[in-house]
């Protein structure tokens, strides 16, 4: 059995195709969204989902959230550095310059954390459907790079799932919106999730979903709304009491929780109360933090966040050489699109009411399940395909050239799968190996792009310069993952090998991690 999984920054869900209909699978309490949170209590099993979320206010040092913001990144990434301070739990530097999370005396790689989330979802699906789940289609933000996609796939393996395909969240949402409806239109997917924002423009027809372009802001999400609200309320509290809560991780987390709840309430009502009881103690007496927040105040606090999302829309439209008026349908995805200000801003930007016929919380999982079913369908030459995705590469792939410059090999926006061959000749007499540094990003300068790894082709015959040629094939598959094949063209002796670049975990480590998770 195969399922579709929306592995979100804050919440995740799982869906499957049952009797030809895509259904989101609920747990025993009937919940379909599960917090992407993992807790390591001092004794007993590792907790995930709602149970782990409850630990967040009790034991923030050993409760891990928003791991997706770290997955597939390097420790020296400035965004990762920023998180060292933002997280209450300890983020350390791992052996391959990748961040690891320190729980008591053990280090966990980020894919291991995500694997616990995936394992939790797998269990929910297995319990509900009564069958084993071995395979999944997992979604990622459209602008995830090669390393982040590869790390997500490894997380699947550690969880005991074969990730048959990684698809982009907005593309999945488009499938959920347009599948089987015989549409023929240009669709914008406005995806405002807990941790990331992206917008994707697609051409949707009955059977083909073609991505025209995609743009995103990796550091803009619903969490920022909570943060803005918490900062605002905290400042008023501080003025009154001179108590600083930011240094107390437990209390600050409780305030963030209350802010999230307040934000949700403000989507329904014009005014809500934000209350954190017994937040501090003065002279033996407990102090409560309580504030009334109106929607107007909240809108004022978050207007700049909404504006940032429109700047991303500008980029996407410019890239596609389209204007807002060319878009036929606007589909809202992600929990943050419940915020009335966000809806209004989108309506103004596209000059039309956004569509509300897909559930922003579950559309991505549903789309993944639909695609999973397509992939697992019996291959028949005369059968019409259910729905095909034609997606694109989110960031250009290039190689480091002389002088610190990057030479593009495959441009962003190119439809996948795609391949590109480069021939490298030796530049020195007697050269025995060729090294090629592969990077991803749009900058001309190598240091501004994301390093994916170094390809070393060794064992070259000693010869005079330029005599030996190495052919390197850069191939990006439908999951957006880069595969390299190097071939020594020397005197008919050709040997091809697949090279994996961004593996922060070795095969043995992946197997160990999987075994250790299964024992618990």
């Amino acid at each position, binding site marked *: 059995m195969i399922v579709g999984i929306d592995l979100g920054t804050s919440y995740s869900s799982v869906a499957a195709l049952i009797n030809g209909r895509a259904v989101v699978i609920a747990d025993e309490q009937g919940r379909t969204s599960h917090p992407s949170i993992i807790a390591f209590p001092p004794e007993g099993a590792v907790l995930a989902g709602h149970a782990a979320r409850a630990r967040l206010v009790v034991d923030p040092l050993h409760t891990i959230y928003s791991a997706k913001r770290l997955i597939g990144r390097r420790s020296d990434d400035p965004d990762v550095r920023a998180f060292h301070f933002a997280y209450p739990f300890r983020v350390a530097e791992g052996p391959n310059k990748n961040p690891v999370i320190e729980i008591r005396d053990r280090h966990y790689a980020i894919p291991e954390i995500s694997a616990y989330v995936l394992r939790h979802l797998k269990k929910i699906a297995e319990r509900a459907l009564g069958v084993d789940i071995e395979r999944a289609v997992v979604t990622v933000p459209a602008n995830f790079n090669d390393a982040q996609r590869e790390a997500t796939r490894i997380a699947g393996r550690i969880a005991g799932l074969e990730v*048959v*395909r990684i698809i982009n969240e907005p593309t999945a949402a488009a499938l959920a919106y347009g599948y089987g409806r*015989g*549409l*023929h239109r240009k669709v914008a997917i406005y995806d405002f999730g807990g941790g990331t924002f992206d917008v994707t423009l697609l051409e949707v*027809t*009955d*059977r*083909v979903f*073609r991505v025209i372009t995609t743009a995103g802001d990796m550091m803009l999400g619903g969490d920022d709304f909570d943060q803005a609200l918490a900062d605002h309320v905290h400042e008023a509290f501080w003025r009154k009491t001179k108590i600083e809560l930011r240094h107390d991780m437990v209390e600050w987390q409780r305030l963030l929780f209350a802010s999230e709840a307040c934000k949700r309430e403000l989507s329904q009502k014009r005014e809500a109360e934000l209350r954190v009881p017994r937040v501090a103690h003065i002279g033996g007496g407990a102090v409560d933090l309580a504030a009334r927040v109106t929607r*107007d*105040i909240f*809108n*004022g606090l978050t*207007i700049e966040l909404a504006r940032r999302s*429109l700047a991303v829309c500008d980029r996407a439209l410019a890239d596609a050489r389209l204007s807002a008026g060319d878009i*036929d349908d606007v589909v809202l995805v992600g929990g943050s699109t419940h915020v009335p*200000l966000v809806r209004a*801003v*989108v*309506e*103004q*930007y596209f000059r*039309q009411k956004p569509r509300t016929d897909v559930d922003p919380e579950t559309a991505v999982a549903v789309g993944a399940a639909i695609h999973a079913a397509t*992939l*697992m*369908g019996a*291959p*028949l*030459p*005369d059968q*019409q*395909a259910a729905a*095909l*995705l*034609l997606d694109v590469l989110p960031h250009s792939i290039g190689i480091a050239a*002389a*002088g*610190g410059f990057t*030479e593009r090999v495959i441009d962003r926006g*190119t*439809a996948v*799968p*795609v*391949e*590109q*061959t*480069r*021939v*490298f*000749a*030796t*530049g*020195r007499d007697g*050269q025995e190996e*060729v*090294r*090629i540094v592969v990077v991803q990003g749009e900058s001309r300068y190598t*240091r501004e792009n994301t390093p994916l790894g170094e390809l070393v082709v060794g064992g070259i015959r000693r010869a005079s310069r330029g005599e030996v040629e190495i052919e390197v094939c850069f191939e990006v598959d*439908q999951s957006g993952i880069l595969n390299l094949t190097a071939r020594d063209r020397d005197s008919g002796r050709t040997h091809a090998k697949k090279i994996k670049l961004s593996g922060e975990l070795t095969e043995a480590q992946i197997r160990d991690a999987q075994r250790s998770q299964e024992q618990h």
Partner: protein
Amino acid sequence: MPARVLIVDPDNARRGLCMVTIPSDRFAMIFADDVPQAMSVVQRGGADLALVAGTGTCRALRDVGATLPILVMDARFVDENLGKAEVERGRANGFLAVPFDRDTFETKAASALHSPAPAAPPARRTRSQPAVAVTAPAPERDPWSEFRERVSQMHRQLDRMDYYQVLGVEPAAGAGQIKNAYYARAMEMHPDRFLNLSDERLRTQIYEVFKRISESFKVLGDAALRVEYDQGLRVDRPRYLRYVRTERKRQGPKDPTAIATTADGRKYVGLALLAERQGNWSAAQMHYSLAVQAEPQNKALKAKLQEIRAKTGKK
């Protein structure tokens, strides 16, 4: 009867803020991007009050003869004195600091609205939607053997086919035809449809062929690239069959900064080499020592620094 507020502001974020803040049961909102759009509403008497972003726009409205009450809005008007001054300058009736709340808006609007003359509510603008129609053409129905034969034939000839042949269109085909052909090919040969195929050889062939199909569309689907590609075909067809052709690149010690391994290290080595070429030994020494600081483990750099030190010592 709701008062009609004309919001003159091209900024979609502020427009959204207005939508969610101004109570829609008491105010009907009309949006305009600029002065001409706003004036066409004002001239047919379609607004009771204008809410305008920026003093400049407000003045411009007054200059072309708008007499309705105007509130001017700006984020800087949290400074009330500035707000009052700008009201004067723009000949407005009041100011609003953005972001504002409902009560503030209502108070300011009430004082600005001199004569709440009852009028017909504005006509709702509806957006025309293109008709839902046209499904992509259905692919031909072939049994397995025929399909297998076609795939392997295409695979064999892949390196002799130009992009038009790959997509199966005439070189004179229009943009629409090219896209349709691409979609038809995708429906027939997209590798996602054959993930479970047990015949691995056929699966690989399908994958290889499809990669070329999307490459073809990438070039032919882009007007500028297509022109370039067509030129290449005319000049030397076998050579320019593929737009992105294999390129030769020399690999070797061409980058003298490569003795450093970090970006910072390379930068300083580059500067040091430049200084060396200019004969400025002390600058070279400084840059090398900075490079060594960036990469304290790098032996080659240390050796280089020693070398330079020896040179400066001699001079």
